[in-house]
């Protein structure tokens, strides 16, 4: 057994470990620069973010080591228990959590805080992998789809109550996992179509249009009129150009999709205009380049873009970015850390960072594909998808391609919960991967 353990450890994917260490240390360097305080220049100063991040890094390294020494089977067997534990924490935080920026997302422990939502993805990943790899689970079946949706949706709902919309959005990552495991590709396409149609609904619903005969009406009705006209044109087309035996089915498809899209469009517009709080609405408007009433609502977005642009090709140099050093971007060391990299390391630095993340994600996907156990493969995809989702939203937000949503850049942003959470997520997979030749399941 002892011998077996040693052989397993030699099979740990050291390339991925190296990438991980590079990201963590480079991130720490940039946190030091972004949070730099001339009166506390010592990088291990615990009163500053960079000093505390060092502590988080030490803890994370320890956790990583522990994960590498765990039995892979342990995660499979205890998946439900781990999932249940984190769901319990999510429920508990709603009761005893402390409120930060209007969301009850933190357990306070002295001056430190723990954010259970950063850990809950591990539970979801493990349980989802266990369920999908069980015999009988087939995405053809509605039952499988519903159970999978339940596993993902339950913690997501708890996080939505906090409310932390950003973290909920990262749960969308699991669609990629289910797609890989057999969920119809139409889901992806419908999802993409829904995004486009949703954007159109938000943009048109935000203004009013002077309609003939009806006067000033909400702009969403223009979309309704267009969809109705398209439906009528579709019916006319089917009547004239389609053989009669296929017509009935096509009429149904047109009717259902028209009603569905109208309902979707009206409800998206209604939610954005009437349900969302004004600061959420403003964030969406800012991302869509729509006019925002309150001055300064797009301040963070503007400052982030200016900071990125300030980097130029080769960057302003470490600790020398004028935007970063003068704190134009609020709390830059957390969700906006990418802008510090972009300013001080330039276009080349940004490319290296994005390239490293893309390579890491692709490497994890390829590692997942080499697993003999379906459990390990699905879990690998969970890890890759979560990293991808965070990269997509976080970097997209900094460079103005996504709304301002507060989620961290994995291994890079300041914060103990996220660093530990991502470390656990990754190293559980590395342990599973190291065991891939031991187990036949």
């Amino acid at each position, binding site marked *: 057994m002892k011998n077996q353990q040693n052989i397993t450890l030699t099979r740990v994917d050291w390339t991925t470990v190296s990438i991980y260490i590079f990201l963590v240390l480079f991130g720490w360097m940039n946190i030091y620069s972004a949070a730099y305080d001339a009166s506390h220049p010592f990088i291990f100063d615990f009163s500053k973010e960079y000093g505390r991040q060092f502590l988080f890094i030490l803890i994370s390294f320890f956790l990583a080591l522990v994960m590498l020494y765990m039995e892979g089977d342990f995660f499979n067997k205890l998946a439900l228990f781990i999932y249940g534990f984190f769901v319990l924490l999510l429920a508990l935080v709603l009761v005893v959590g402390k409120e930060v920026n209007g969301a009850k997302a933190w357990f306070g422990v002295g001056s430190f805080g723990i954010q259970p939502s950063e850990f809950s993805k591990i539970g979801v990943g493990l349980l989802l992998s266990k369920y999908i790899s069980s015999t009988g689970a087939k995405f053809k079946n509605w039952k499988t789809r519903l159970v999978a949706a339940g596993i993902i949706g339950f913690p997501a709902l708890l996080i939505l109550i906090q409310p932390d919309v950003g973290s909920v959005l990262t749960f969308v990552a699991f669609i990629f996992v289910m797609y890989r495991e057999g969920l119809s590709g139409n889901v992806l396409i419908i999802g993409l179509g829904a995004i486009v149609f949703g954007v159109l609904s938000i943009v048109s619903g935000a203004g009013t249009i002077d309609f003939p005969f009806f006067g000033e009406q909400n702009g969403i009705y223009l979309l309704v009129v267009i969809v109705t006209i398209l439906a009528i044109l579709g019916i006319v087309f089917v009547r004239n150009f389609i053989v009669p035996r296929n017509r009935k089915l096509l009429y149904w498809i047109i009717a259902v999709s028209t009603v569905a899209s109208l309902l979707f469009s009206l409800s998206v517009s209604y939610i954005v205009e009437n349900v969302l709080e004004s600061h959420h609405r403003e964030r969406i408007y800012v991302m869509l380049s729509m006019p925002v009433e309150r001055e300064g609502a797009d301040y963070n977005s503007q400052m982030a873009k200016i900071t*990125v*642009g300030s980097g130029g090709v080769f960057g302003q140099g470490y600790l020398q970015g*004028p935007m970063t*050093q003068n704190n134009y971007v609020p709390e830059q060391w957390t969700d906006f850390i990418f802008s510090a990299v972009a300013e001080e390391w330039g276009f080349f630095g940004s490319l290296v960072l994005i390239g490293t993340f893309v390579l890491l994600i692709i490497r994890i996907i390829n590692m997942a594909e080499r697993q003999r156990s379906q459990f390990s493969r699905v879990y690998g995809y969970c890890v890759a998808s979560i990293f991808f989702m965070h990269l997509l939203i976080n970097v997209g937000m900094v460079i103005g391609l996504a709304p301002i949503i507060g989620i961290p850049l994995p291994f890079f942003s300041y914060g103990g919960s996220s660093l530990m959470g991502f470390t656990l997520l990754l190293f559980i997979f590395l342990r599973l991967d190291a065991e891939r030749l031991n187990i036949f399941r």
Partner: protein
Amino acid sequence: MNFDSRRITIILIVSVIGIIYALRLLSLQVINDEWKNQGVALTEKEVIVYPSRGLIYDRKGRLLVTNQTVYDLMVLPKDVKPFDTTAFCKLVGLSYEELTSGLKKAVSWPNVKYKPSPIIKQMTPPEYARISEELYKYPGFFGTPRTLRIYPQSIGALLLGDVAEIDKGELEQKPDYRRGDYIGKSGIEKAYEEELRGTRGVRYVFRDNLGIERNVAEGKLDVAAVEGTDLIATIDAELQRYGEELMQNKRGCIVAIEPSTGEVLALVSAPTYDPNLLVGRTRGNNFRALNSDLQKPLFNRATQAQYRPGSIFKLAQSLTALQLGTITPQTRIVCNRGIIGCHGSHSNDDLEMAIVHSCNPYFRGVMQRVVEGDRDPSSRFKDARIGLDIWQGYIKRFGFGSNLKTDIPGVKTGLVPGVSYYDKWYGELQWAYSTIYSLSIGEGEMLITPIQMCNLACVIANRGWYVSPHTVKQIGNGGKPRDEFLVRYDTGIDTAHFRVVVDAMEKVVGPGGTANRAKLKDIVICGKTGTVQNEPKEDHAVFVCFAPKDDPKIAMAVYVENAGFGGTWAAPIASMMIEKYLTDTVSNKAEEKRILEANFLDR
């Protein structure tokens, strides 16, 4: 069913997102300069380095104009943190309303919250020192030094001029100035703006990670400021001060010029004011008060007031007629008081005595000989046209009726009426000498400024030429005046013709002369009085002179409005100024007291 191929789709999606983000970064960081420029605008500050404005000294090296440092309290709204407004208002001495409106102004167009704006302007060094120690408690507030003009002698307000913030109109014409820059508004400050101003420098700074301002690119982009050039003025501060004292409670002016160089020794316009009134925070109010003063202290009577010259013009008439040969010093003309009045007991003077007696009929005859020269016997109207043209040509060469090429801003030209003037007034061939003869004694349409009167005295002192009057003798210590002030203008009148005129002027100040009050024991003054009628008010007293007779050092014109006889009021002032300038003392204390106590302001 096997879904292994879906791996490719997912990797493709990840890669495409990576490429999209890379392209977006390429656009933000490399292709598009807009974001970078906005960053530079936010973080780099262009600090303007104001050169200190050139100083002005008098001809004897006494400081006339210097600079004093004051402080503007600025606010950079971006850096302002919530602060105790009550304590702050108490510290800097503002009311709460003034503070809030100042802060509001600092963030309203065209000010932006990333650029500093002034909250309090021009605090004195002690005022600023008192608050500067506490200022660290209020991030975003800081003081910037700025210099003000100070006039330590408190004299020569109109001559030296003033400096103020550039206004909109000037800004449009002078692209190298900026809003808030200071510029000379009048006097030497305006005329020598280019030299005094120096060249503004620029420092580019940014705040480094220690919060210290550092030079961008090690200061290679910086432009050093070039200090303004100092000027040596032509005036004598003591003479100027004495002239201003003598003219207190009077309206009028004194012009004193060194004939050989055209250097203005004193230029007094009364009533005057302390030039320090138009400096700093109180400038606005003081300017309004001076501007609405009925005695017009801002009006430079020495260069802008256009008076009828009166009897002193007879000097120019004599010289013109002598040069034309229409009279000789021996020419006698009967004092026929039928057409034009006269005073004193004389009946048939020669030229010298006619000048001494200021005989009006004599000079009516002199000018008649000049104008009615029988050059066109067909018509006396045509003849007058030819004659007046010739006369006007000579008179203008004395510097009358045209712009003396002086460096004093805003000088007026005066008027020497000619053919076209009378054609317009009476119609062509509708006038003859009999219509315009009052010109002959300096009345009628003739207008000249006091500085032109003094220039006439210079011409006579130099026996035929003058240098344009100017107020700066050295640009830069040990430098030269402007080129145009090294040029002699010749009047075209032979030196020989001046002898009789100068002798007559000596007699004017001599025993029995109209200006006998001006006589000095050791200095021979040559002068000519004038008394310009000013119905229904008192006459204006006029006196022009130069001294000493044989080696003239100073030429003067004194004009005292509504004072009465020139010999009683203007001549003694000139005499005391001459004595003061040449000997540094004034001997006749009784006369000095009489002048100092005279008050003509209410006339």
